[in-house]
């Protein structure tokens, strides 16, 4: 028994006081916070969100307002059909045919050239381009002997004669070029076409072009487009013919109502291309172009969410600043001075607080709509505030009212703290009131301030999302999570991912801040944890 305990050699004896490291209050808080698992998740989440909001847009290949008209409502995961070894197709929900690779990189969108509604067949063709050159801008009158359904451009001297569609697999349109037109040739992507004596092009199909410049449309879908590159070079998009036509055979399969919600009929596509018929989905792959898909205007959802994080974080920053610089100062002064000053200051708070935030936003958006504050600095132009954008209004509204709860909380804390003996001691020493507030009162009220701030930040973010959701917040083309959710709601059943990801972003932000706030409250006031 005796040899179980040995005397410690002298050199190993240490003074307890010497070995213990002196921890400041904040070191102690950090130590406790580190042990709090969920709050560390929250902290990491908050840091990630801030990081993404600041740097995300730099890495994003698209802007938040870039639209890809070819890829509208493309989901994050797409079903592709394999036609040949090199050719894969994706059929979008609204029955667009888009070329794809095996791993899901989207290519050209084929244009619908005809539809046979009785047999439920859609005909698609790859868009081709015709390059033309021009030297003058004379107008050319249409020749008198053209057929009835001719579309004629006076600028170019080009006429397009519409042939019958859906008669077979040949689509023949005729292009007429005015004899006086400076256009000498038309070139397709693959071949040049010579003009014959009558200035007619044979065997060329002009189909619905892509792009959004001035299109001339026929009533049957024969359209062509003229894009102007510079004063001399124009590009006419023309779709070509026969052998490249893809037809999609779709059929509606009705299933039991209990299995699928009403209106969600399962569409089975049968794709025919150069004699190959495919009706089975080859693979479901990730959309490589738009990681989280695109919205109803073909804008990248991920990019918009990242830009939305900026807006949410801006609101969070404003809420923090307002809370700290107005709320804390106001509350400290009211609490410390006390008496009738406190009474009046708190009645002002009551008045501000009695009007709901939504009302402020509505009223302010009316008042501030025309207001733009901008300035020039180092030769660059900065816009400090733009009332019409929506975000400005929310920020001003938050700035007006969001500090009142913090002011109340701080006032209560300060009233309790100012009777503490260390404050009396400071007063007997003769420390000035401002120093008492900044060195004694506010540091000691910091715990509840920080806790309530971490709880108020997600509330502000949520308020912004809510206001944007109901249409009072950020306006297009800017993307806030609330507006994204609002836009997605219209086609929520068909494209649930458009609602899911912005909502997920809101939820993660809420959770991260709330977890962090929860952990901070425990860390700042360990007594609460027992209760």
């Amino acid at each position, binding site marked *: 028994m005796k040899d179980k305990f040995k005397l410690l050699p002298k050199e190993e004896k240490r003074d307890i006081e010497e070995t213990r490291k*002196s921890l400041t209050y904040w070191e102690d808080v950090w130590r406790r916070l580190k042990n709090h698992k969920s709050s560390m998740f929250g902290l990491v989440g908050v840091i990630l969100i801030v990081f993404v909001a600041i740097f995300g847009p730099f890495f994003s290949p698209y802007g938040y307002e870039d639209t890809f008209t070819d890829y509208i409502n493309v989901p994050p995961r797409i079903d592709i059909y394999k036609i040949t070894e090199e050719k894969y197709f994706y059929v979008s929900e609204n029955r667009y045919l888009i070329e794809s690779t095996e791993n899901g990189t989207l290519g050209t969108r084929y244009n619908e050239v005809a539809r046979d509604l009785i047999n439920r067949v859609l005909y698609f063709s790859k868009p081709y381009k015709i390059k033309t050159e021009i030297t003058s801008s004379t107008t050319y009158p249409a020749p008198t002997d053209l057929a009835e359904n001719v579309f004629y451009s006076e600028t170019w001297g080009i006429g397009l004669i519409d042939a019958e569609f859906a008669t077979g697999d040949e689509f023949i349109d005729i292009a007429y070029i005015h004899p006086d037109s400076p256009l000498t040739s038309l070139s397709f992507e693959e071949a040049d076409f010579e003009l014959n004596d009558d200035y007619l092009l044979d065997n060329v199909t002009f189909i619905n072009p892509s792009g959004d410049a001035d299109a001339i449309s026929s009533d049957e879908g024969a359209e062509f487009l003229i894009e102007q590159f510079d004063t001399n070079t124009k590009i006419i998009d023309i779709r070509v013919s026969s052998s490249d036509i893809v037809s999609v055979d779709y059929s509606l399969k009705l299933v039991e109502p209990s299995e699928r919600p009403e209106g969600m009929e399962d569409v089975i596509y049968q794709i025919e291309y150069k004699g190959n018929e495919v009706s089975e989905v080859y693979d479901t792959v990730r959309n490589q172009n738009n990681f989280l898909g695109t919205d109803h205007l073909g804008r990248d959802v991920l990019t918009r969410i990242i830009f939305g994080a900026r807006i949410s974080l801006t609101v969070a920053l404003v809420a923090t600043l307002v809370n700290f610089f107005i709320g804390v100062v106001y509350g400290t002064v009211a609490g410390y001075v006390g008496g009738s000053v406190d009474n009046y200051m708190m009645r002002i708070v009551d008045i501000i607080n009695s009007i709901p935030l939504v009302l402020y936003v509505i009223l302010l958006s009316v008042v501030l709509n025309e207001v733009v504050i901008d300035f020039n600095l180092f030769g660059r132009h900065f816009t400090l505030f733009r009332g019409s954008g929506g975000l400005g209004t929310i920020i001003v509204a938050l700035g007006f009212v969001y500090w009142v709860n913090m002011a109340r909380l701080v006032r209560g804390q300060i009233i309790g703290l100012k009777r*503490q003996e260390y404050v009396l*001691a400071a007063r*007997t020493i*003769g420390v*000035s009131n401002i120093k008492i507030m900044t060195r004694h009162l506010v540091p000691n009220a910091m715990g509840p301030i920080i806790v309530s701030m971490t709880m108020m930040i997600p509330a502000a973010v949520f308020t912004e999302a809510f206001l944007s959701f109901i249409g009072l917040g950020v306006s297009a083309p800017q993307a806030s999570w609330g507006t994204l959710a609002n836009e997605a709601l219209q086609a929520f059943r068909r494209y649930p991912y458009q609602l899911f990801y912005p909502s997920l972003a809101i939820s993660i932000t809420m959770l991260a801040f709330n977890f962090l706030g929860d952990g901070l409250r425990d860390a700042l006031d360990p007594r609460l944890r027992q209760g």
Partner: protein
Amino acid sequence: MSKTTEKPVLEVRNLKKYFDKSKGFFNREEKILTAVDDISFKIYKGETFGLVGESGCGKTTTGRTIIKLYEPTGGSILFDGVDLATIPEKDMLPYRKDMQMIFQDPYASLNGRMTVTDIVGEGIDTHGIFDDEDDPELARQEKIYEILESVGLKREHASRYPHEFSGGQRQRIGIARALAVDPKLIICDEPISALDVSIQAQVVNMLEDFQKDKGLTYLFIAHDLSMVKHISDRIGVMYVGKLMEVASSDDLYLKPLHPYTKALLSSIPVPDPDNKDTENRIVLEGDVTSPINPKPRCRFCTRCEYSKEVLEEESSSNFRDKIINRYSREIILHPETHELVVTDGQLITPALADKIINIGLNKITLGKEKCFNEVPKLKEVIPDHFVACHFTKKINKDLLK
């Protein structure tokens, strides 16, 4: 030890501190709490003036009003001949240096977010004590080390935070903070009541040493009577905002003249289980008078055994004459409802006297008119012994001789 020829460091004249307790916008009833009501005393250089009394009697308020933590309602606070009561808050800074305070709760009196250096150095910074030195930063640090060592702490404690110290050590930090600006007068507001007994002695001895070394003057507020007797040269006894008795500590303990002082002193526990000493203990009856809107009378009259007068019936008419227009203070039978009611300091009218006799009461306790009708003034009954009681001489006939 007569001090009358010396000039006092602090002279408090008719000091009043009232708090307005009126509540509500609609409730227009005025409620004035007279925490300190017209008290006067002097403290001479190098002495310790003890201020004792039960909880809520206004000791702490007195201390805090003297140091101008509270703005006095009336009276004057003469510190070295300057009336602090008339000096506005913004001009107080030079006087703050000369008067310091040690607080009761060592846990509440130190700011947990500041290091010991910052706490002790705050006074030095505020008053710019070393601003003229070549290296004010170094001089400040040296001064802080010196003070810390003088209160029994180590140099390495300077960079620590208050929560790393025990209660006794924290109280030492509080004392170091008060000493840092080299004050002349220190108001000790129950500096030892939150400490345990062994540490109380250390702290008190330390305070006494500082007094000897630096010629400090203390206003020592406490409710521990034996400790106050030990440390004080003179003692003032307070009761509900009034000074009841002021005397040298020996005088006060040997010859208490005020009935309240007598009761207070008899309550000192005797640390001897065999000698219970309960016979000599004066147990006061009744409740402490409310300090809110007090009536103009002796604050102690409701509990004082000497303010009572027991009248017994000899003959009916005689008894009637005796009680008419006298002050009642005890419980009597209500003449109409036959219920007992308190008639606290009320005048008994002839009609009421008749009713009392008709009921058949033949013995009644009445208060003395003077006690119930007049505020006793603090008078020097014997040299350097002040008492505020109407019947001091009558009560203490033998003692005064």
